[in-house]
């Protein structure tokens, strides 16, 4: 007698593939938001599985803040080339140059907030009706309330108090003209699941996730990469540190962690032992208690 059992990773994978296929079936013009971070890399991998042996039937969209790590851009371009995926880029620099947004000033200036405008402009330009993103519910308390199919009004806004109930695996993607959806296939994954899956599936990862020596400085307890886009305060000193990144975003809002983890196995062990959430090093979340909720309401993903 067979026992019909799936491991938790296989069950999560199967759920995510189902969600991704639902997007392709229910929407006319979907896209996959690709940041070059581990969650979007896993989403891309799942999308390949969902449509095998065909290519992914939608483009990758990268909202480029202009403050990205060089390694992220190289990884992104190689990935698109290797798998024949269409890559579309929305540029925050262009939004600034055209006066759509105003650059923040001061030591803590970041383009993280500005990218919402660029994202919504990009969605409008290409008339995307669903954008797949790699957000997870375990990341942040506002995201714990997020649906798989997250409805956005014509201004791209999220209305957390009035979300559609989501029952079983029946997803309601119906909308009026001008509205769109954000879809989060890996909602139920944790950081640990993501790394275990990367290990299990042997997925190639950007070098930033592994330990390396880098010129860094410390501000408010966060380790920043030393880069042109973050002006140093007079008291801040740059020194070489052995670090890696737990999340990858804009240089100006991504903190590094001291780590010697050199392989996915070592990262898994590190994640298992760690006592601080991955978003603990995200400066964008530290702005206020409801920072993520506020950004999401205005159209952030």
């Amino acid at each position, binding site marked *: 007698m067979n026992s019909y059992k799936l*491991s938790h990773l296989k069950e999560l994978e199967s759920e995510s593939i189902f969600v991704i296929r639902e997007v392709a079936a229910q929407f006319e013009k979907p896209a996959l938001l690709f940041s070059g971070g581990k969650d979007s890399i896993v989403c891309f991998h799942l999308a390949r599985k969902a*449509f095998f042996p065909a290519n992914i039937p939608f483009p990758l969209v990268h909202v480029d803040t202009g403050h990205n790590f060089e390694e992220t851009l190289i990884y992104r371009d190689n990935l698109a080339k290797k798998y024949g995926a269409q890559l579309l880029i929305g540029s925050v620099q262009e939004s600034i140059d055209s006066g759509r947004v105003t650059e923040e000033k001061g030591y803590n200036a970041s383009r993280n907030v500005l990218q919402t405008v660029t994202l919504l402009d990009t969605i409008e330009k290409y008339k995307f009706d669903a954008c797949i993103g790699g957000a997870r519910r375990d990341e942040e308390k506002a995201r714990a309330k997020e649906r798989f199919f997250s409805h956005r009004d014509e201004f791209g806004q999220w209305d957390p108090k009035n979300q559609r109930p989501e029952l*079983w695996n029946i997803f309601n993607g119906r909308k009026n003209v001008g509205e769109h959806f954000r879809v989060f296939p890996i909602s139920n994954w944790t950081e*640990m*699941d993501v790394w275990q899956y990367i290990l299990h599936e042997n997925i190639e990862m950007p070098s930033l996730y592994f330990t390396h020596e880098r010129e860094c400085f410390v501000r408010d307890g966060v380790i920043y990469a030393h880069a042109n886009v973050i002006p140093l305060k007079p008291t801040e000193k740059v020194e070489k540190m052995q670090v890696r990144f737990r999340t990858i975003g804009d240089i100006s809002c991504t903190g590094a962690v001291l780590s010697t983890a050199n392989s996915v196995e070592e990262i898994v062990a590190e994640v298992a032992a760690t006592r601080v959430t991955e978003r*603990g090093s995200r400066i964008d979340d530290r702005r206020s208690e409801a920072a993520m909720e506020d950004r999401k309401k205005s159209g952030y993903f």
Partner: protein
Amino acid sequence: MTDEVKQQWKTAKNQDIFKMDTQGYLDMELLRFTTAGSVDDGKSTLIGRLLYDSKSIFEDQLDAVKASSEKKGLQHVDLSLLTDGLRAEREQGITIDVAYRYFATPKRKFIIADTPGHIQYTRNMITGASTANLALILIDARKGVIEQTCRHSFIASLLKIPHLIVCVNKMDLVDYSEEVYNRIVDEYKKFAAHLDVKDIEFVPISALHGDNVVDRSTNMDWFKGSPLLNTLENVHIGSDWNHEDARFPVQYVIRPHTDAFHDYRGYAGRIAGGVFKPGDEVVALPSGFTSKIKSIATLDGDLYEAFAPMSVSITLEDEIDISRGDMLVKKGNQPENTQDVDAMLCWLNNKSPQPGAKYFLKHTSNDARAVIKEINYKVDINTLNKQEEDKSVKMNDIFHARLRTTKPLFTDSYNLNRITGSLILIDEGTNETVAAGMIQ
């Protein structure tokens, strides 16, 4: 949280039980459970303890919650702040929506759908219950079985959650009395005889002090069962999916149009029931054409069998016309093929159903339109009594109705299959999901 409790949690945390085995973790089972509770029944404390003891609450999260508790002038750390993620929730001290929480032990990964007890109660609990393998029902040992306990249990049975664990909480406040516990268990069993739940476990706990949550309580030597976490880790969930009746709703048709896969047609979907193997003879509904399974394809290679809830892509020996909404089944075992659907519906929207109004209906990968032909009766979810006189439906009402659909659906009874037995109704004007239906 008092220093005493903090110390206990620290001790539990350092025990071997939560040490993560890297290899073992790759092969764990997933258990989804829902918790239901009202104000002050200790639900937040219990969830907080499970998360904290399994190292799923991180230091920065705990610091944030501590700071917020202090800001609110509280003496203790309010763990409900961990799950109440929205600004309005924190301001009003209420939970608005289902929150999902995650923790893992070396044996299992757990997904908690934490549903609020305050507003829109039924709607949220049904949402949380729809994907759960198990429901935790909390009873305050001082109060015993109350109306709310019955309501929670009824919804769990209506949504066919296969396993129930009844936690008699706050045992510390009744001197850990076996007599009190037994009385509540008897009371609950008497009530549960009216429900359709096969597997019910009972456990006396104190979420605050940790009795029988992770470790066996030394205060209740008389209790011979397992502590809560142990039960969560070991309850048999392998047969929660239907592995008898083969059902494959076609979700998407894969046509690569490349040189290497010129005539390839893969029917992509998630198996809803039964087992499919290459060589199996299948019938495509609604056309009734038959063919044989040529392969079950995945990026990782072909499979020799596939079962629920796997997402696969099936190719057939013959070229027949199949599209999204169709279903592959086996000859001798077919679902109902009908346009008249009897279902228990839960109404989820402020706007009551209007007589003769039409709705979009979603059932597996199938879309149709439907009209509510007849409302047979409403169920009083506190007493389980049928109400046949007053048939006016409002939000959170549960009622039995007959639907007429524009095209045939391929349905099973929700008792047999939670996937092919469930449906939702969508308002044609607002596009909101207005009802959840369990097919009879």
